[in-house]
């Protein structure tokens, strides 16, 4: 509990320090008032100060409550973590493969994986939903709504309409 | 020996002929049946760049007999679309809208880190010149450009002039005006014509620089006075309004919207596209749609358009440092 909050507050502190360093290289003030670096500098400074206040709050308040709550963790482990990582992985897959594979194939695989692995949905149901969600939606969006969803970059796949 | 060299020559000649035949056949066959031409527009759907492109696309479809599909890739003032165009196959099936001076700025301004250069593109033709205008409120004391310039010289950096955005055509027009006349303005960058015009009508700023298409309503209602059009000829949408040139200042400004192909696109195909564009722009349908939107057709073929590219490129290059330090 306490540990993870301390880590989080430190991340904020490091983040604001990094921002501050980055903003120093931008022009701070110009002949016509604040330059590009003016707001980033002050904002990162304030964020840094606030992070420090938060750290102080955690350090001061924690001892009593830390005992009562024990070292129960804030973030899940085991199954929960695995599920979150699977979601993350599935989205990364979409980001990496939506353009090369085309929307329809990538979305079909994405939905099928999510429904089977995380939703424990029956196979026939999975096929129906993933089919509608990928091939069906592609047609609705590209043909009716003119929203451009990617076609496959692989030529023979694109040729058969995927 | 002689024989063999002759044979070789014949072979080379034959090969050359075949190649030529193939190339011209390629142009003849362009565009192939059931193959769509993609027109990349680096601006979002619904804007005036997009509207003009869509009108042209539907006109060219009829001329070419092939589908011309508009693909919007907005972002970074068109840069995302230009990057995509520069990386497309140079076969004529991918072309793109280019807005001057925007595309030149993205090339010349080192901060923009563009992945393309001027010669990454092959100009096809110019469609629209949305000329710049300098406007003041109807009750403003300035009756002519001369009045404004004189006052700006008397009180440097006190007269406020709006642009519709940093490094837009308007911005470069003001910079050029300053350079030509020696006057100095306080340049205020808005984001779009709407907010800038509101500020002009609310007397928050002294003068407004924008495009013809954006001020027609206010001109009609009599809320504003146009001091000059930045073109060599009067705008058909505001007859009787003087040009800058007629007032002794040779200033050409506004948005030039034309079309590009990736460099290396065969000349025959570029010419075919350029001709199709010309034919489309001469049809009544395209003409009237564009006129309604206040878009002035200014067709130029590939050669003339390339010339504008080069000239405007030089102007922009000189003004870039100024545009970032004001």
């Amino acid at each position, binding site marked *: *509990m306490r540990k*993870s909050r301390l880590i989080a507050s430190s991340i904020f502190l490091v983040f604001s320090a990094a*921002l501050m360093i980055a903003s120093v290289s*931008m*022009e701070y003030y*110009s002949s*016509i*008032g*604040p330059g590009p670096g003016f*707001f*980033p500098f002050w*904002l990162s400074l*304030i964020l840094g100060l606030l992070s420090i206040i*938060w750290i102080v*709050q955690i350090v001061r308040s924690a001892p009593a409550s830390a005992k009562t709550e024990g070292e129960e963790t*804030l973030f899940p482990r085991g199954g*929960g973590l695995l*599920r979150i990582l699977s*979601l*993350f992985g599935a989205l990364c897959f*979409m980001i990496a493969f*939506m353009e090369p594979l085309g929307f329809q194939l990538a*979305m079909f695989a*994405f*939905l099928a994986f*999510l*429904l089977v692995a*995380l*939703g424990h*949905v029956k196979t026939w149901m999975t096929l129906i939903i993933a089919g509608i969600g990928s091939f069906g939606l592609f047609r609705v969006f590209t043909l009716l709504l*003119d929203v451009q*969803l990617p076609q496959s970059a692989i030529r023979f796949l694109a040729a058969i309409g995927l | 020996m002689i024989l063999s060299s002759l044979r070789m020559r014949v072979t080379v000649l034959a090969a050359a002929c075949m190649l030529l035949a193939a190339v011209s056949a390629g142009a003849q066959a362009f565009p192939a049946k059931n193959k769509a031409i993609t027109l990349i527009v680096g601006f979002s*759907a619904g804007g005036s760049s*997009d*509207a003009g492109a869509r009108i042209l696309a539907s006109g060219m479809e009829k001329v070419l007999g092939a589908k011309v599909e508009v693909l*919007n*890739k907005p*972002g*970074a003032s068109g840069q*995302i679309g230009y990057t995509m165009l520069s990386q497309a196959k140079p076969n004529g099936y991918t072309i793109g809208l280019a807005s001057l001076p925007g595309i030149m700025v993205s090339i010349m*301004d080192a*901060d923009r*880190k563009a992945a393309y250069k001027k010669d990454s593109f092959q100009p096809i033709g110019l469609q629209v010149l949305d000329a710049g205008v300098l406007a003041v409120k109807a009750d403003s004391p300035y009756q002519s450009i001369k009045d404004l310039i004189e006052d700006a010289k008397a009180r440097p950096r*006190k007269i*406020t002039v709006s642009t519709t955005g*940093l490094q837009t055509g308007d911005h470069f027009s003001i910079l050029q005006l300053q350079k030509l006349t020696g006057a100095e303005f306080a340049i205020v*960058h808005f*984001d779009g014509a*709407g907010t800038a015009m*509101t500020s002009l*009508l609310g*007397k*928050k*700023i002294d003068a407004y620089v924008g495009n013809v298409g954006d001020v027609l*309503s*206010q001109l*009609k209602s009599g809320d504003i006075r146009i001091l000059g059009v930045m073109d060599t000829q009067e705008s058909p949408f505001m007859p009787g309004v003087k040009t800058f040139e007629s007032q002794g200042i040779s200033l050409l400004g506004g948005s030039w919207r034309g079309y590009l192909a990736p460099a290396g696109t065969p000349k025959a195909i570029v010419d075919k596209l350029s001709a199709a564009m010309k034919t489309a722009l001469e049809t009544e349908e395209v003409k009237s749609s564009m006129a*309604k*939107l206040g878009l002035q057709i200014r067709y130029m073929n590939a050669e003339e358009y390339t010339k504008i590219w080069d000239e405007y490129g030089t102007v922009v290059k000189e003004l870039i440092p100024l545009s*970032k330090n004001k």
Partner: protein
Amino acid sequence: MGFSVALSPGNLLYAFLGSAFGTLIGVLPGIGPAAGTALLIPLTARLPPTGAIIMLTAIFYGTQYGGTITSILLNVPGEAASAITCIDGHKMALKGRAGAALSIAAIGSFIGGLFATIALVFLAGPLTKVALEFGPVEFFALMVLGISLLMGLAGKSMVKALMMGILGLILAMVGMDPVRGAPRFTFGRMELMDGLNFVPVIMGLFGLADILENAEESLSSTVSAKVGSLMPSKQEIKDSVGPIARGSVLGTVLGLIPGMTGSMASFLSYSTEKKASKHPEKFGQGAIEGVAGPETANNAHANGALIPLFTLGIPASPTVAVLMGAFLMNGLIPGPFLFREQPELVWGVIASFFVGNVILLVLNLPLVGVWVKMLKIPYSILFAVILAFMVIGAYGAESSIFDVFIMLLFGILGYALKKFDFPLAPMILTLILGPTMERSLRRSMEMSQGDFSILFASPLAATLLVISLVVLVSSALKVFPGTGKGKSDSGSVGK
């Protein structure tokens, strides 16, 4: 005289079609109001001008009704202007009050739209003068006032609320600097030069973060929200009266001012309601006021934004600019002279706003029952559908895979922030107001060439700045006597 035009069978049909399409565009991901309206322009090409304009304007204000639905039911905002509705609307859905939230949103939208239209008819002239008072300086003062409401958005810990507010402002800096054209925090990515796209950011912060949290427990056993009664209770209606009234005024006024967006209207309404509420602690837990106010405000904004189009010929927002294009395509230049030249058309179109809003209400109230059925889908399936919906939504707006990445990034951030009990509202508020605040300040500096006194030279701006100071001090007084409380809170955070 306008009603005879608007109520003719043909025009009634166009208003109906426009309303239905608008609602649909609002519900669907990946297609915002501007793109949606632009898309449907060709559909209207063969209609008579009056019919075409009636249909397109109906599409425009119809989108504001539709955007709410996914915010409340799925915690995924369909449009930027409905993002804030996620906070309390979705909480209401979890408590089985989805039907009530949707009904109140529809009723509020109706009243807001009606109010703005009445303002257009009777007060267009004087209101336009108000709009013209807003130059860069006044814009800046108004943004400062908006951001001063930030402290009122704090949950248990003021420090965390402020941290989020500042983080939002920092995120608002991403992109090309508005005066010098220098890239800031873009990491060399072209996609970031125009700043972060708002829709993928909020989809990540709300929708994706929600799913990640639900994934801690098994996704196949999580229950979707209860359906519950569809009608708002008497208490809920009573609580909504004030927010709807204030939202109507706020939305209309902001709609008048070119450059103010619908999301600004809804966020400012939310902040105002929380500040005005006698029980601000209920906000974030499913307070009906947090739905009624913003949803009213964004509709009043949509209809109010049409006022400067008619009186000044100025499009007040990107979507109205698209609409203006449609006017032009039909050979009409919007502006005050249109009332003289084509009175029948103008009054017909304005009358159609009344008709259209009535149609939308009639269309949407019965649909509430249908939409709410969505919650009967088992969560084991629903979560995947929501994810697909978000991927399309993030990608579709700009056809950019990068935006899907942004959504993922902000999903993880949102999840982590939730774990540490950070309130999201302050961050989103500043993310929306931040860019405009910085731009208008620096624009003011361009006008005065660096002289700060310009900020106080305008009476209106000075008044707004003084009000912000009062708001800040009063919030601070509320907070600081309870500093000790803040400390003990942080100990019990995130259990």
